[in-house]
């Protein structure tokens, strides 16, 4: 029984990680209608940048902050230089971000090589808590906690601030919002940077959990896309549910059907789509 419980908790931890990265994706997607296929690569970038800092004796938390900062800046640059020219043009966005992901991923391979790496668990969170006769890593509990905090933050931003409304209005009618004196371009850049920073953050936090290796960007991108599809476009709450669901099913699946865990997740997505073509909490996309 307690082994099952441990697996469940592990699944939730992974789920929370998926939630963190999917949140950035779904916000950019649902709010700005931008498909960002380089999202997984930003995740990867965050992890590798932190790796470099940590390898140079920097504290985990400081490395985390710097990584997030770097990926957010990356987001700003990308948005101002490239992304903003393809608003509203879906195929162009796909191709552009596809190309960007190749550039970034190959840069990572170039600068850091192809061997697998890991980020060490920060000293503060090293160790485990015992549940009966099994031990559970504290770090994973931390990830779960962090995910909850993020959910809280998003809820607050959505329910209590005007930002959500402004962004939504800006997507619908950019000129009008601009005429009202609100700097729409600034807001869009900000949202994109937020999403990028979130991706980098998840990368760093995910480092000790899933490691760092070539191809991790496409893997995590696909997982987050599945989360977004299951949860519903633009709904971070849906992403939370979807992510945790996937985390649990994937972890349990790995135990029982090791070579088919991805198939199970994929089938889950198909089932959800058959029942609810717009995802669990999704709305019709414009």
């Amino acid at each position, binding site marked *: 029984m307690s082994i099952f419980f441990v697996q469940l908790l592990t699944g939730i931890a992974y789920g929370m990680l998926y939630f963190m990265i999917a949140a950035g994706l779904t916000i950019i997607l649902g709010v700005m209608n931008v498909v960002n296929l380089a999202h997984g690569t930003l995740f990867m970038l965050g992890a590798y940048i932190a790796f470099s800092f940590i390898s140079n004796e920097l504290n985990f938390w400081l490395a985390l902050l710097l990584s997030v900062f770097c990926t957010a800046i990356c987001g700003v640059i990308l948005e101002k230089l490239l992304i903003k020219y393809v608003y509203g043009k879906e195929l162009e966005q796909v191709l552009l971000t*596809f190309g960007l992901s190749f*550039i970034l991923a190959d840069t990572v391979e*170039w600068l850091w090589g192809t061997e697998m790496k890991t980020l060490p668990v920060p000293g503060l969170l090293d160790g485990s808590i015992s549940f009966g006769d099994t031990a559970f890593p504290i770090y994973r509990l931390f990830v779960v906690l962090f995910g909850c905090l993020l959910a809280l933050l998003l809820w607050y931003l959505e329910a209590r601030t005007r930002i959500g409304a402004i962004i939504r209005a800006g997507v619908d009618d950019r000129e009008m919002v601009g005429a009202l004196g609100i700097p729409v371009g600034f807001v869009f850049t900000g949202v994109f940077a937020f999403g990028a920073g979130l991706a980098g953050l998840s990368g760093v936090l995910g480092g000790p959990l899933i490691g760092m290796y070539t191809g991790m960007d496409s*893997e995590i991108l696909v997982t987050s896309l599945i989360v977004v599809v299951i949860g519903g476009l633009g709904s971070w709450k849906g992403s939370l549910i979807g992510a945790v669901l996937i985390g649990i099913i994937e972890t349990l699946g790995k135990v029982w059907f090791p070579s088919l865990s991805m198939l199970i997740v994929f089938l889950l997505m198909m089932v959800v789509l058959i029942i609810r073509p717009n995802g669990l909490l999704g709305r019709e996309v414009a």
Partner: protein
Amino acid sequence: MNKKAIYTTLLLIFIVIAMPLILSDFGMNLVTEIFIMAIFAMSLGLIMGFAGMVSLGHAGFFGIGAYLVAILGQHIGNTYLLLFFSIVVSGIIALITGAVFFRTSKFYFLMITLAFGQLVYALFWQMKSLTGGADGMSVSAILNFGLGDLFSPLSIYYVMGVAFIIAYLLLRLFVESPAGKITKGIMENESRMQALGFNVQIYKLMVYTLSGSMAGLSGALYSYFNLYVSPDLSGWLFSGQVMMMVIIGGVGTLFGPAIGAGVFIFLQNFISSYTERWPMIMGVLLVILVMAGKGGIIHWLQHIQKAVFSRKKITDDKNYQLKEEEAAS
């Protein structure tokens, strides 16, 4: 068949026959690969340009076709059977996945096809005992259409060349057929097509199945050609590459993707011989293509064609004007 198609076909036949005379062994090998990739690119071009569907996981079908030949080829020697299986299995998978995928919006379709491609990749990667996992597996199957084993580079070249021409012709037929015109209409204005009485879902499924089976065929042919398959054949990079081929050649045209395949393979070989950073360069090319507008090579060719034949158009316009004046008087 219209004139353009006939000329193109004759030109192709000529090229296929004539090329071995001027190419080195290496060159012939390259062109053989181009023929195979051209089939693959045209299959993606079909759904992108004629049905308006952007699929990011088309390499999934390619891998399925390739591995089918590799795995079944260990037990079955009949070429016709193996090719048949590749086409049919990929087609069925396209049909089933398409039926679920099309109920969702375009956004979702994009993402789901990506997930599909990655799923196929993951399956090939994980089912080590069957597929050899990340190390890939070698292909023992040999082409044999009833006249003896074909394993010389020249004979394989001709097989692929013929396959390419047949694929082109089949697609031409489809595009000019009622079903093809209707599919194009659906891409132009889906709601009107529905209001005119067309069951839009069936046509989308039809074209997706056709595209999937063609992609599977190209994968199968690749197996015979390369004699080695790996999970990367269904990976994200490869899906991106075939999409680039379509874009370079021109979305919305039948033959454009084939040209794009040629340009791409050539570039890839050329640049890879100088640097390992081909993915990065490919990414940069993609970004440049997008930012500069996605006309593609075929549209440039069409511009030239219009410029050369523009005199004819002016005369037509003059006739039209004369008729208008007559009617008014």
